[in-house]
């Protein structure tokens, strides 16, 4: 039973992992910093650990999908992320594919 639970947990994490890029990109239409994103995703019932979000933001930035700026005006410097033009295109395409996939998978598993 314990093994069943842990297997389920692993598969569930895998399923979610594929969607994190889509979800995170969707939240960067306005400048946002890492911890703010962690909190807001938590409120929206798509919780992601900070130790996943921070490296992911950095990777998306390296891929050119996000842009970043350090806000050093306040006494606590924060790195704000915003989706880039390329990121917008990427996001729209990924979103379309996701909707399409929902339909396909629904057909497959409910037939």
């Amino acid at each position, binding site marked *: 039973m314990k093994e069943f639970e842990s297997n389920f947990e692993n598969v569930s994490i895998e399923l979610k992992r594929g969607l994190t890029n889509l979800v995170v990109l969707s939240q960067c239409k306005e400048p946002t910093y*890492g911890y703010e994103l962690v909190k807001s995703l938590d409120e929206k019932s798509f919780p992601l650990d*900070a130790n996943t979000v*921070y490296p992911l933001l950095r990777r998306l930035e390296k891929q050119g999908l996000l842009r970043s700026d350090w806000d050093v005006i306040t006494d*606590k410097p924060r790195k704000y992320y915003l989706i880039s033009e390329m990121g917008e295109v990427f996001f729209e395409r990924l979103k379309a594919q996701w909707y399409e996939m929902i339909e396909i998978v629904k057909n497959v598993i409910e037939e």
Partner: protein
Amino acid sequence: MKNDLVERYIYAVVRRLPEKERKEVSLEIDELISSMLAERAGSGESEEEQVRAVLNELGNPEELARNYSNVAKNCLIGEPHFSLYKRVLKIVLIAVAGALALALLIEWLTGVPGGVEYDLGGIILLTTKGIIHLLSTIISGLQGAFAIVTIIFAILYHQGVELDSEKFDLNDLPELPDTEKRTGIGEFIVSMVFLSIFAVLFVVLPHINVPGLVTVRKWISFFNPEVLVTIRPLLIALVGTALLEVVVKMMKPMGSLMRFLATLLANVVVIITLLVWFGNPLVLNPVFVNTFQTDFSWNIMGFNGAPIVGFIGKWAMLPLPLMIVLVIVIITSIIEIVSAGIKTAKASKRSI
């Protein structure tokens, strides 16, 4: 002042990342931890408790580092096995090299053909031959150890064997490296005192070198003064390079190239001096040993287990305690060279 635990946590993450990533990622994690701490403010916990709670929530720094680094999955050995592999490999290689060096040194010292009095040239030739044999054996030994450890870890990784290193304890976080550390004035003074005593007893006044025997008639030195006179240039070099090392250690921080070169030079001179000095068949003062045996009727045993007689000896005629001291000093010198080398290599890697 920044919390030490936070700094150590950040260091534990970024030290596994490429050099150019470290600064930025440090700032990011620092920001994350501040945000998480700000949220906990006013929870009634002490600052220390808050920091510990936040870091535990963030989880294993190794995992965070892995999330930051894009390690390819289709490799011979990947994470989390690779981190452990590097650690194990380092330990195994050092152990194999140390054990082989010790075994060979003993074999070589005991195997030197006896009965012949070596001149300085002969001793240097033998030493060179010994060092070449030592190096080639150690290198082939290291190759074997490397191959075995690598194969074991490749199998573990591809079989997906789980490792305990997934769990972590905040108290196990590594200490921050102290690159600015220099030798203090206390150590400098102690070194100078010892060097001065050594220089006086063995270089300036070899006839009263210690330890010795005070008899009714006169002071009898333990080491043969004639030999000390022959190797005087080496002893002067030894004192000189040791002095240089002490001074450089005062001036340069840990990990600087100058410091490594000074350590290398000083220790190489120590090893050569000891091999030449103790390799001399007449290293012990014949008068000392004679007096010891006649006055105290106590035989000094040689390294080969037989009592020393006649004192026209060879390696095997060295008393066992002296042999042990010789081996320990030589190994210590080698370890000092290697550890200074590692520190310098690490420091130069950090500063790139």
